[in-house]
Structures are given as C-alpha cells and as structure tokens.
C-alpha cells in the first residue's frame, strides 16, 4: 500500500477534472442534500466552464442544483425536491426555469431517486417499492414516450406498476418499479480522501455512496487529502473504496456555502443573499459575476467571500456545527 503504483494516483486540479469528465450533454449526479455537503466548488467550476445541456439526476440537492440551473447548464432534470427546507422552501432558479419552460423536468420521490441510484449501483435494471402507487408521480411523465424512445440514455418507461408476482407475500398486492440510473459522472464533496480515491464521510452520507457507485466516473473533492495509511487504520469509516473513483481534487471549503459536518456550517447569510439575488435577473447576473465568472478559481472565490466570514462558520468540535451562529 505504501509503495502504491502511479496507476492508482488520481489527484488532479479541479479545473482539469471538470474539463475532462463534465461535457455538453453529460448525465450528471451531485452528492449532498439541500444545504449540506453539496460539491459547490465543482459546481461553480462547471458553471464557470459554461457547460451546457446537462442531464441532471437529483434527489434533494438544493443549493447545488439551483446554482447549476442558474448557470444555464441544465437541459433536463430528474428530481425529487428542489428546495432548502425552511431556509428556501423552493429553489428560486429551479422554480423560474420550470415555470418558464427552460428545462424539462420529471418528478420522482426521494426514495424513488435513492432506489434508482441503488439499482444503478447494484447493476440491476429496476428496484421495487410500495411508494407512489396511485399518485401523479406514477401517472404523469416529464419525458414523453417519444422522447424516451428516441434516446437510448432514457428507459422506455418512467416507472411501471406491477402485480406482486409472489401473490400477497410481503403484504403487498402490487409494486411500483423504478428504473436504474447510471450517470456518466457523480460529483461528491467529502471530508477526507486519499490520492487513490478512497473516501471518508463524517455525518450523514445522504445518497452519495449509491450515486457514486452507479456512475461511470466519480469526481471527489475533499476538505483533507490524507495518506492511504491514515485512512486504512479504520476501514469501517471509509464508505467509498478507490475503484469507484476517477479523480480526486483537494479543495478545502469545497462545500461552501453548504455545511460540511464537523468542519464548517452553512453560511445562512450567503444563502439568504443568494435567494434574494436569484429572484431578479439583473441581481442574479451580478451575483454570478461576483462569485463565479469574475473569479478564476476556487481560491479566488474564497477571497471574494472573505476569510473572516469563513472562520466564523467553523464547526464546534463537539456538536459538529457552529453553535449559536446567527441564522435568523
């Protein structure tokens, strides 16, 4: 392990990783959940590189999702939830894009999206659930039958309701089958990784691991790039082993302005300012100029935010968040 060959060394600059794997038309998934551990530095880099026509798979990737849509990168979206809880009940650029018909959207539930990633990770064509039977999620499709037929990257059916082939076994008369998702690329932001790509997440992993395992390529950004030796002293705590990972980028504060458990909290002030800017075209353009297009790197972005502001978000070692931080 210590004299590991170069073949397993995957550390590259973030700009290179994005340029190499995230292209026009890429089917993309992003890790994290609403205002936690979204791969924000990678997302800003995608926006900065003006990638277009992404097909995005999301469960509840609020903040990251909204920046990608706001950046005009997304053409099609399969999604469970576009919001940030009570912080921003509905993501505003998402809402505007759907209402204006600028993106084609297809709705699922969070469990359905999670199962679809799991099916992709498992290598099976579908998984069953008792969720959504009788709902409009089952009845109404965002992608038409014709669109599906013409695109080999889409399953022919959004989902299928089937009688339980095992009779009444499992107390179910019928199940809803959701088709697997296999993204081209998943972006994850984690607390710790090594150069080979093994990852350690502290706190809730959300759907990150299934998303990663379902993907052809995984780009990992990490707060800390550590040694293989250090990670392997406790393999129980590493959720993703290196064979799944294509690129590792060392990007401290790469989840900002979302929270990274035990490292830093979300920046409520930034998120609020974002939500306000997102409501107005001119102000949103100014926001993007200030934080994305007007800065040429993640480091320059952090300077634009300002170090003292970042310092104030640092997590308390016991609770894992910034205790008594101003959030109102």
């Amino acid at each position, binding site marked *: 392990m210590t004299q590991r060959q170069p073949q397993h060394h995957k550390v590259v600059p973030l700009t290179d990783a994005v340029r190499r794997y995230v292209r026009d038309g890429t089917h993309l998934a992003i890790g994290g959940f609403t*205002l936690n551990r979204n791969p924000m530095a990678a997302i800003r880099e995608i926006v900065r590189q003006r990638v277009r026509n992404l097909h995005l798979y999301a469960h509840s990737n609020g903040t990251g999702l909204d920046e990608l849509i706001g950046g005009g990168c997304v053409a099609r979206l399969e999604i469970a939830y576009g919001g940030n809880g009570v912080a921003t*009940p509905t993501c505003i650029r998402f809402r505007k894009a759907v209402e204006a018909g600028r993106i084609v959207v297809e709705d699922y539930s969070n469990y359905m999206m999670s199962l679809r990633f799991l099916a992709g990770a498992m290598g099976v064509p579908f998984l069953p659930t008792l*969720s959504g*039977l*009788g709902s*409009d999620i089952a009845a109404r499709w965002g992608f038409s039958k014709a669109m599906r037929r013409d695109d080999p990257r889409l399953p022919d059916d959004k989902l299928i309701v089937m009688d339980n082939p095992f009779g009444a076994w499992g107390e179910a008369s019928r199940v809803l089958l959701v088709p697997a998702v296999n993204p081209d690329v998943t972006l994850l932001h984690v607390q710790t990784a090594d150069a080979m790509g093994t990852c350690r997440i502290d706190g809730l992993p959300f759907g990150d691991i299934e998303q990663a395992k379902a993907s052809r390529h995984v780009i990992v950004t990490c707060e800390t790039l550590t040694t293989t030796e250090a990670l392997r002293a406790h393999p129980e705590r590493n959720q993703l082993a290196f064979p799944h990972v294509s690129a590792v980028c060392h990007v401290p504060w790469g989840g900002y302005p979302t929270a990274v458990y035990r490292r830093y909290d979300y920046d409520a002030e930034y998120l609020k300012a974002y939500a306000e800017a997102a409501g107005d075209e001119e102000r949103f353009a100014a926001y993007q100029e200030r934080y994305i297009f007007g800065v040429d790197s993640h480091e320059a972005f952090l300077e634009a935010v300002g170090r003292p502001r970042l310092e104030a978000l640092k997590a308390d070692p016991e*609770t894992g968040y910034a205790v008594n931080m101003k959030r109102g």
Partner: protein
Amino acid sequence: MEKLCYTPREMMTIMAAREIGDGDIVFCGTGISMLAAVAAKKINAPNSVIFFETGAVDARIAELPLAVSDPRIMYGAAAHGNLLDAFAFMQNRFTGDRIIAILGAAQIDPFGNLNTTCIGPYDRPVIRFSGSGGGCDVASFVPRCIAFMQHEKRKFVERIDYLTSPGGLDGGRSREKAGLRPGGIGVVITNKAVMRIDPETRRLYLDRYYPGIAPREIQDSTGFAVDVSRSCEASPPTATELRILREVCDPQGLILRNRPSD
C-alpha cells in the same frame, strides 16, 4: 383560571404534539413540524423518537435546524443512516407501523391527498413548488400522518392540481386497491381547526375548531363541503404546554416568531 394568550402557530404546534403518543417514532421535516415533534417529546411523549428522511435517528436537537440536512440533526444521533435506510425504516412494517409523520403541503383535497409539486399544468406550471421530497414516500408507507395547512379556500380544494402524496386517493377503498398500505393523512391541523379522515367515507370532517372560531368559518375557508356536525371546541394550550413550548423548545423564537409560512 387566568386567560392565556397564544398565537395560532402555538395552537397548531400544541395540537400536533398532542397527537403524538409516548414511544411513537416521529417523522418530521423542519419548521413547525419539527417544533411539534420536539414539543411532544418535552411535554407529553418523553419516549418518542424523532427521525428524519436524511437518516438521523433520535438526534440531540439543541438548536432548531433549518433543513433536514442541517448538521443540527446529526449531533448526538443514535446512528447516521442514509436516505435508503430512512425510507426503508418507514416501508418496513415492523418499524413503519410505529411511526407517526408530520407533513406540509400547498394543496389538500377532501380525501387527504397532498400536492407539493405545482399549480397549473404539470409540463408548464403556473407555480412550481419544491416537489415530493420524501412526502410521497411517507404518505405511502406511514399509517398515521398529520398534515399542517394554512386554512384557505385555495389550499383546501376539491381537486388538487397534482397528486404528490397519496392519502385516500378517490376515497372508499381506493387506497388499498392501488396497492398502498393503510394510512396516509388521517389528521389535518390548520390555523383554525383540526380535521380528521372519517374511517367510513374517507373524507375530511371537522373534529375541533379553535376557541373563537366558528364551524361556519371553517366551512367558508374550505374549498369543499365539510361535515361539521361532529365538531366541538378544541382545548386551548395549557399554561404548562405554552411555557415549555416557548421557553424550552424554541427559546430564540426561530419558528414561533420568525417563520410564519412553511
């Protein structure tokens, strides 16, 4: 006995907390639903267990979270599962049958079906909301669900624009016929009243109206016919309930004061 002052928001929170039994496992989101869960735990259900769709079980909620991914729901949890674990916990009948869930919605119909997706045509909506999140899953799996609603005619409608989270579907046995487990929305708690699903008709009826609100006013704020014949006045929050709610559960007023809509 002295007359207590309280807000509709406080009343709603306490009415929901009273629905929670000791030992119940409580699924909730953020905002008032989480406040209700915390209030139940501090007031009437000390053994209840709060969990979130993001996979944290029985966290030590020292500060109110703004989202179910807030690190404030991770601290002191029994375990950190993932999304799959959280939903399996509800779909699994051994654990799922012990759960009571609290949801919110933009629209509700007479059978307790919820819309959190859109107003207008699905492919080009007039208003787009956040979407299901875990709402559809919870309403599909959990035997007892509470909905929090603002009591307005445009929210209580005969036919919702999009059926995101299944309640009784078309009433009668249509929920079971669709293959869903028994359950879905059984109680709706609004800023004016508590409504329940009739086990026979599977329609919402008025169970309790809040002090100072006439049953007639409930009907006028509801976009479909409501049976008010069985209703009576709700017991207002007690001094103890209010004290614990204000001083212990939300001392900063994060939910009780600052966030009137969610």
